[in-house]
């Protein structure tokens, strides 16, 4: 701040008579020379922060940014802005487990924002086959992506934006991995996945279906041909029940196998009664698939409902559709007829003991408490594991995962062949599509750092979002945030600093979903994308935590007139530190914590 000597500026008047006085008790001249900012020991600064939703998103989706564009009616812009951090809104907008909504600060007031549905709306605003409008020249490096699931797709998308020339290898005849053959059509329509691949293709990414690495081509061959390899082969093998007879009946199938067959259009007949073993999302998908095939379904799970790894919303919808749940029960023995059909599934009642390493209470058999389940077929969905044969021992694995470092680079012997990175379900990470997309982004940036010989750990420090581990592609690219103001991507909004008094209640839009009777008649999706009016209404509920909206509160409340418009059409305000006393009223009254108080480095000089 400018420090002027008061004695130079202040004038002194000496009144000889009462006749010289002004009627009001006021200084005769200006008081501008009195720089009250010199009293300050802390000062406010405008600092946009990471909203709770973005902090919670595994992919670091800048939700507040595109919600704002949505509010402004800039739908195309919102689409491309969203794709900066999460490239597949039409996919995740349908199937994401909504970490953002669980963290949404609006819930303190009434209910979270329906972010997932808004994301779907934004995803449907632009034809998915539209390539990114601003593609760079190729940087001369080639990348082979093995596996076309969400991790592979994401790595390919971001690596292309960084100039890599990319080929995606897929063992199956269809692209999309778990998105195509795992998640049922009613949750994620095939055409959405197919259109996304159209988009990737239109960005110049080569797609190689029906090319299984380890069979049609070896990893070593790829290592010779490409500069970088991204392993994203996912988990496609169901774990065994380890019961006698398990492999001797055509009526016993894995959940993944069943979903894949249905997805590829193969005929299957699970029979009238189906028992699904397991409590994860695959179990629920299999159960709801079997219901749609006309079976009566019972899900048998060894713990109780609250320990189920499946998403509660999915469980609820399955229940509405008529899926029965038998909790605290585990298969003990399979009795087969001579023709391979199932005579009896013997289960044992379980009880919950102390917590195990997963933090959930361990199921314990109740000795002798056996009961029979009459069923035509058994679907096993107690967990999935990867197949690593194709790695050919080039890459080190541990506990059924590929060992990786912070850059998602695998532990492989150092040579002059391609550097290998890995992501998605084969690394030690929660198995969700959002996490898979995050790993693809991270690997793409890590490969680019490697290409440019830049230290990834240093880069990471700059681009990590809030508490991490999500990282920002925008920040890496140096793209402007939605607000052209100082944005601190390291600081998460302090929810205690949100002033809810400034927001009025508005209930969350109720999800529009078809009734269960209609749902179970086909594999068609049973929800629809929000209408424009509904999307606008829901977007308007966002309180923009951590981000300035030019609400003028600071300007109105500042007792020192030290909050000034930037002017010239520029966004936001500036502080006049010559007069700001550091009282902190702007900070206290900012409804969304986009002002921060910082300590002055040293006392301001005074004459």
């Amino acid at each position: 701040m400018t420090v002027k000597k008061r004695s130079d500026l202040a004038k002194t008047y000496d009144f000889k008579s009462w006749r010289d006085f002004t009627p009001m008790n006021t200084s005769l001249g200006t008081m501008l020379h009195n720089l009250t900012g010199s009293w300050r020991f802390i000062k406010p600064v405008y600092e946009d922060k990471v909203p709770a939703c973005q902090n919670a998103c595994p992919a670091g989706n800048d939700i507040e940014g595109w919600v704002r564009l949505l509010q402004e009616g800039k739908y195309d812009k919102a689409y491309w802005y969203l794709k900066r951090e999460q490239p597949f809104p039409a996919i995740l907008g349908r199937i994401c487990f909504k970490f953002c909504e669980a963290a949404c600060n609006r819930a303190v007031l009434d209910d979270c924002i329906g972010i997932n549905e808004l994301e779907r709306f934004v995803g449907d605003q632009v034809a998915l086959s539209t390539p990114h409008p601003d593609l760079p020249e190729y940087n001369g490096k080639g990348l082979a992506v093995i596996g076309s699931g969400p991790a592979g797709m994401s790595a390919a998308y971001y690596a292309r934006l960084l100039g890599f020339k990319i080929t995606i290898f897929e063992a199956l005849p269809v692209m999309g991995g778990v998105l195509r053959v795992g998640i049922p059509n009613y949750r994620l329509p095939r055409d959405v996945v197919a259109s996304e691949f159209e988009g990737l293709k239109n960005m110049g990414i080569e797609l190689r279906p029906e090319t299984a690495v380890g069979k049609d081509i070896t990893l070593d061959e790829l290592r010779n041909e490409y500069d970088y390899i991204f392993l994203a082969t996912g988990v496609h093998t169901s774990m065994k029940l380890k019961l006698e007879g398990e492999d001797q009946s055509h009526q016993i199938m894995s959940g993944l196998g069943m979903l894949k067959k249905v997805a590829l259009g193969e005929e299957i007949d699970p029979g009238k009664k189906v028992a699904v073993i397991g409590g994860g999302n695959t179990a629920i998908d299999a159960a709801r698939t079997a219901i749609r095939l006309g079976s009566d379904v019972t899900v048998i799970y060894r713990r109780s409902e609250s320990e189920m790894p499946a998403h509660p919303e999915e469980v609820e919808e399955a229940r509405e559709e008529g899926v029965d749940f038998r909790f605290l029960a585990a298969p003990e023995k399979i009795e087969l007829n001579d023709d391979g059909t199932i005579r009896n599934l013997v289960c044992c009642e379980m009880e919950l003991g102390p917590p195990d390493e997963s933090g959930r209470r361990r199921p314990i058999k109740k000795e002798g408490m056996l009961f029979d389940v009459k069923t035509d077929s058994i679907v096993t969905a107690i967990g999935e594991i990867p197949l690593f044969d194709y790695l050919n021992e080039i890459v080190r694995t541990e506990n059924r995962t590929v060992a990786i470092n912070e850059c998602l680079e695998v532990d492989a012997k150092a040579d002059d062949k391609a550097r290998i990175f890995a992501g998605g379900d084969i690394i030690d990470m929660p198995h969700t599509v959002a996490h898979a997309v995050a790993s693809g982004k991270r690997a793409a940036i890590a490969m680019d750092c490697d290409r440019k010989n830049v230290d990834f750990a240093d880069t990471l420090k700059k681009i990590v979002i809030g508490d991490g581990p999500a990282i920002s592609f925008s920040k890496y690219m140096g793209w402007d945030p939605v607000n052209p103001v100082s944005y601190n991507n390291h600081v998460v909004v302090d929810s205690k600093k949100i002033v809810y008094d400034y927001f009025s209640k508005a209930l969350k839009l109720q999800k529009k979903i078809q009734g269960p009777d209609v749902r179970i008649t086909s594999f068609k999706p049973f929800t629809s994308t929000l209408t424009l009016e509904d999307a606008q209404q829901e977007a308007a509920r966002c309180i923009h935590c951590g981000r300035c909206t030019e609400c003028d509160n600071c300007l109105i409340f500042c007792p020192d007139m030290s909050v000034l418009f930037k002017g010239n059409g520029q966004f936001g305000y500036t502080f006049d530190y010559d007069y700001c006393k550091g009282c902190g009223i702007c900070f206290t009254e900012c409804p969304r914590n986009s002002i921060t108080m910082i300590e002055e480095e040293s006392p301001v000089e005074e004459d």
Partner: protein
Amino acid sequence: MKQVIKGNYAVSQGVKLCRVEVISAYPITPQTTIVEDLSEICARGEIDAKFIKVESEHSAMAAVAGSSSAGVRSFTATSGQGLLLMHEVLHWAAGARLPIVLANVNRAIGPGWNIWADQSDSLSQRDTGWVQIYCESNQEVLDSVIMAYRLAEKILLPVMLTYDAFFLSHTSEIVDIPEIEQVDTFLPPYNPEFKLDVDNPRMFGGMTGPDYYYEERYIIHKDALETLELYPKVCEEFKEKFSREYDICEEYQTDDAELIVVTAGTITSVTRIALDKLHEQGKKVGLMKIRMFRPLPVERWCKVLGNAAKVVVIDRNLTAGLGGVFANEIQAALYPLQNRPVIFPVIAGLGGRDVTPEDVENIINYALKNDQPTDIPLFWGLKE
């Protein structure tokens, strides 16, 4: 246009006609309907004013002190305990020379909790430096609001209008409401020489040491006395525009009166009835209605009351241990006279107790009968 309206709406209509720009008030019976009406007038956009909601009367007064400092015509209203809560800022507003207008509905001070007419609230604020005007009718209330701004902005002192709870605040009378364009010709926009200006900030109400504080207070006193000269001129101009006559105080049948009754507020109307009856009986009695009480019109009072043999002062207020405020001030004002009238101080109607024409008639007859007052003061109608 003539309308039948309550006293409180006479105020709100007056405020609207004056194009007040900031209104801040806190509700208190019997004043509430003033600000209720004003808030609705603001909400309907009938007046280009900011209505500031506050959490207390102290804040209401502080808010209008702020807006008035910024050079904006400002208004507030209150009553009883609310006025007492404003006390600190009342002093500030006068000392800072802020031409705020305040309507105070005279209400008794608790305990016992009492919402009825009694002038103790405003009289206890007589030393705050505010100009005080007491009103008798709803028409007078409306007209006084308009004249108050004219006076206040000329002399740079705040003006408090007062009128009795319920007898006026909640009683409907015919009121002639002038056209706003007509009021505009009487009341120019407020544009003070000194005001808060962010582009040219000045210090207001800053530290003023023994060197200058004394002179500053003298100036306030001098200007307050000037009000006594100015107000009759304002009334004269008002009469020219609106054909209604007001003065610093009002006289009724005082010319050859041997006894003059002094009243303020609605007891005046009751007294008029009593006087008419007494005149029929040939008794020479007159009336002086107090309008301006601060600054105190000493000269005028002496002129009106100096020739009477007896003066009866009816006080609807009480300063415990002394008596009625008006009687006390009249005694002080008349003291320099060579031939002072005999003063009969009477306390009547505290806490809204009804004072009828018969009461006033009897009070006057008591004073006519006795050479000297029997009690100082006489508590009229006390349950013995």
